[in-house]
């Protein structure tokens, strides 16, 4: 695969990644947000495969495979399992209205592109628009976490942020060393498990969403 073609494909996938993050922000329903982050992970895995084909680095194929298994299947399944188990209302109750968050999101995307346009030479080390897309997805993930007061949606925001980081990391030179990427994914899975345990434990004792607890102040 030629470099020019890979760059174009990465830009297309970057756009899809951004679009799926906006879907998470716009969804008023818990399951929709979970499906959106699963779809986003599929785009991330395709990006890994494209870069693997373009650079001839077999590690990237491995990462693409792990991404599909862990991020597109395992973690969304874990979230859905927790939702079913605790039987919470599936509406997302935003702290800020969804329209306002989308307006904020537009500002963040523009900002990310402006910021990385100011970086001249290093752009060459990173394929296509992976840097601004990465920054935008990371910040949008944080926006999801800040604007939704529901534990599971906050986890979805976290996964989106991590997808943004991975997208940029894959596009840097030839990606990070395989063993490091696997270690990071392992951390993500363990972290998600611990978060799941906390959500279930709170649910079993006080019957509220853990993110709704507000006893510790001052």
């Amino acid at each position: 695969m030629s470099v020019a073609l890979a760059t174009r494909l990465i830009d297309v996938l970057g756009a899809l990644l951004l679009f799926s993050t906006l879907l998470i922000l716009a969804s008023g329903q818990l399951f929709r947000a979970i499906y959106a982050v699963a779809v986003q992970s599929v785009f991330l895995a395709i990006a890994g495969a494209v870069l693997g084909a373009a650079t001839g680095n077999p590690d990237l194929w491995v990462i693409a495979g792990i991404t599909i298994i862990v991020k597109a299947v395992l973690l969304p399944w874990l979230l859905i399992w927790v939702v079913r188990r605790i039987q919470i209302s599936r509406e997302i109750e935003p702290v800020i209205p969804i329209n306002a968050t989308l307006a904020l999101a537009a500002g963040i995307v523009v900002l990310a592109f402006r910021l990385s346009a100011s970086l001249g030479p290093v752009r060459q080390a990173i394929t296509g628009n992976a840097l601004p897309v990465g920054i935008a997805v990371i910040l949008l993930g944080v926006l999801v976490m800040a604007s939704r007061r529901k534990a599971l949606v906050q986890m979805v925001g976290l996964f989106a942020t991590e997808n943004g980081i991975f997208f940029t990391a894959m596009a840097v030179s030839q990606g990070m060393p395989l063993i490091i990427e696997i270690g990071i994914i392992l951390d993500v899975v363990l972290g998600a498990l611990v978060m799941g345990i906390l959500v279930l434990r709170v649910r079993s004792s006080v019957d509220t969403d853990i993110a709704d607890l507000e006893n510790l102040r001052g």
Partner: protein
Amino acid sequence: MTSGLLWLTPLLPLAVGLAMLLVRDRRVLTALDLVGSLTVLGLTLAIAGRVVRGGPVSALGVFRADHLTVLFLLLIGLLAVAVSVATVGWMRQELARGQMRAERLRYYYALVHGFVATMLVTVLADNLGILWIAMEGTTITSALLVGFHGDKHGLEAAWKYIIVTTIGISFGLFGTVLVYGAAAHAQGGVLAGAMNWSSIVAIAPRLDPGIIRIGFIFVMVGYGTKAGLAPVHMWLPDAHSQAPTPVSALLSGALIKCALFGIIRFHTIARAACGPQFSQGLLLTFGLVSVVVATPFILAQYDLKRLLGYSSVEHVGIIALGLGFGGRLGTYGALLHVINHGVTKALVFLVAGDAIGRYGTRDMRVIRGLLGIAPMAGTLLLMGVFALAGTPPFSIFISELMVIRAGIAAGRYVILAVFLCMVVTIFAGFIHRVGQMVFGTADASVGREPEARLPMLGLLLLVAAMLLFGVYLPAGLDRVLAHATEIIVG
């Protein structure tokens, strides 16, 4: 042989932790806990000896121990031992009060050792990716410990802790990716060890300053969250106050220092790539904001452990200020403050835990006359709090003085003036509150069982370090500090 030592140091507590899962007997668990911590201290001392005599050692480009590492290793080793010894007494109290269930003890001890192991990997890592993985590992293990009691407050604190620090340090990961990208670009391709701190710092002057600047901002916000620097400290007072007391001591004493260690590693790269002004300016900003934000919360606090949590925010701010003022003196003072604050804060948390166990409350308005019912604990609490407030002859006074002198040398008078006002205010607030707790007469309902001797040994170890470093710095430690300073300021 030496590189084997680097592998063994984190693997041993991990193995001890796993072995603990198979044990149900309380006495065996306690013995394993003590032996495990003592071996960790022994291993860190052995590494320190090697490094002081023969310079930095590395193991396959994964782990590396230089003088900076040694400093943090010694702190972790010392606190692990002191906390283990103090846990003996604390655990007895908790079991008697019914706070801890006997059948879950093994999980507690195993998690503590896993937590120590991840902290050791953090400071031993040469590869910046492994540094990050270990840092997230500390979050996962310690979040379970914060919520260990399973009450509503503990779980709320654990949730805030894991969600805020995980999102925070994913910023750190992005910063790491950017720095790695800049290094790979400068080398013209990915070479072996391209992610290692030692190889990146060697080519740091050739890195693109624009990308390093953005990378450092991400790292500063990311690892700064984990270090408890304001304004991203919101989780810290909750987690440090709700955790079981020995865990609070490790969180405040050692863990936030490990996050600072990450910042320091990137600070050295940023210094070489874009000049000292940029990263030092950022450190100064975060440091001053931390001290200023902590002050009102310390004054208005009634919860003893929250008070100590906010005091940690203040002291992390002081360390950041020292690094930000820069120069040999500021950096040396900041590194010394890492040790001094770690030792002192662990001591105060452990004593406070004992007092809270006796009175059955953390409300400082209710705790009265500690000196009368527990003379040792009362004395140690008073000493520790005077030390935290920065009074001579305790060690924190010395390192704070160094930071202040560095600020004068750097000509940052406005920052210094604000800083000094805050420190004086905190001093007054601290002494006022704790004076009320220590003196006076206790209610009749308060537990008056005599103080156990063995757990006191752990506290006395910390007191010895706190007093010693206030009046005299051992030549070996001074050498390590001087070399570590050189690593940072070149």
